[in-house]
């Protein structure tokens, strides 16, 4: 039934990675179509006319956009195995809160390390980024996963950014092991899962891509 599920994808996108992980966790077969973001396909433009971005999951011809919304959709449709969200409404609200927090903070602050020249604005973004990681470190506490005893929606949302730790360290002059040792351990733990290691980007490749952006922007 591979044609039932089509993912408009981009290898490097941490948002697309979330969807890939969710699909793997559920054991679903799907077709992945790599988009050229400089030359977007007519299908992408048709399926996500509002944002024109990946990931888009097309299920039996119907498009679903926005990674957090897609992951919840996958969990609701294929609800017979590997739950990605807790069943209790309060626990669900708690998980969604942290997903929303990660979405508001990590990429919006992190990408300023390569999309902005060095200066006040970049420093402020770096500070906010580290504050966010420390908040997540506190939320993780001594639990094996952000989802508690099991890997869940919150872990899926953050883990693609584990590949970015190396880039944040190099560009931001940071030491993630020193600042957030539990998060680093958490990242390594998640990487043992096949669904994760198959889906996330290589840290060196992420760093090289960031350097290329900096070069192109002339910073």
């Amino acid at each position, binding site marked *: 039934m591979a044609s039932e599920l089509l993912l408009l994808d981009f290898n490097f996108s941490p948002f697309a990675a979330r969807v890939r992980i969710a699909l793997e966790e559920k054991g679903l077969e799907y077709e992945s179509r790599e988009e050229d973001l400089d030359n977007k396909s007519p299908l992408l433009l048709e399926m996500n006319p509002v944002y024109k971005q990946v990931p888009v999951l097309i299920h039996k011809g119907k498009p679903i956009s926005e990674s957090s919304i897609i992951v919840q959709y996958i969990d609701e449709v294929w609800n017979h195995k590997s739950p990605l969200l807790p069943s209790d409404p309060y626990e669900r*609200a708690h998980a969604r809160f942290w997903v929303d927090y990660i979405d508001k903070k990590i990429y919006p602050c992190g990408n300023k390390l390569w999309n902005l020249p060095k200066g006040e604005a970049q420093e402020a973004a770096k500070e906010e980024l580290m504050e966010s990681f420390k908040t997540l470190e506190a939320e993780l506490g001594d639990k094996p996963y952000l989802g508690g005893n099991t890997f869940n929606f919150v872990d899926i949302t953050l883990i693609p950014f584990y590949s970015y730790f190396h880039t944040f360290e190099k560009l931001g002059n940071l030491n993630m092991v020193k600042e957030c040792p539990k998060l680093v351990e958490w990242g390594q733990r998640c990487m043992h899962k096949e669904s994760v290691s198959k889906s996330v980007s290589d840290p060196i490749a992420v760093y090289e891509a960031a350097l290329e952006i900096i070069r192109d922007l002339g910073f």
Partner: protein
Amino acid sequence: MANEKVKLHGFWVSPFANRVKWALKLKGIEYEYMEEDVWNKSNLLIQLNPVYKKVPVLVHNGKVILESFLILEYIDETWNQNPLLLPQDPSQRALTRFWAKFAEEKIFEAAFNALCSHGDEQKKAVQLTMEAMEKIEGELKGKQQFFGGESIGYLDIILGWISYMLPVFEEVGSVQILDPVKFPATIAWSNRFLNHPVIKDTLPPKEKMLVYFQERRHIISCANLGWIKF
């Protein structure tokens, strides 16, 4: 549900807190309301919401739920009697969540910028608001009474601020966004929403809102011009 203790921490003019009021009222849930002064935050609010220090906060039997979008879903899942706020079908739910997120990021933020800015920056903010609203106008065409169908649903609640607060932004910012030629469906929806029995009596007084947002516009303009540093 006699043992249920529901408390809502809000602020009189917060459109986010208002969403929760509407949801609780629609479901017929009794609750205690706590007015918070967001400009002089209580220790309790900071304790309940240490990450953002904001309203609304819903406390249900001691459990704390934050963020208006998430509180609405929590209410719908916990009190799953009619009216249901979100659609049952997963693809409809996904679409509803998509439009809610879009509206918050693209319409509300731009409209607030239009309220607080001047000159070219304001013109740009108005343009962005209207562009985003065109998408919502498109979604309303061919719909029944509300986004939720015959009755008010999640998306109506999320967008509800447009009906009573956007006209205030327009007046304070001296701009026009709700052009009746461009947005006939939105304006018709807005009127139906305002006249709904649950919504009608829960709106902050317009005069009070005008004064409040005049002050916000003034303070933010001064801050942007560098006269006041926060």
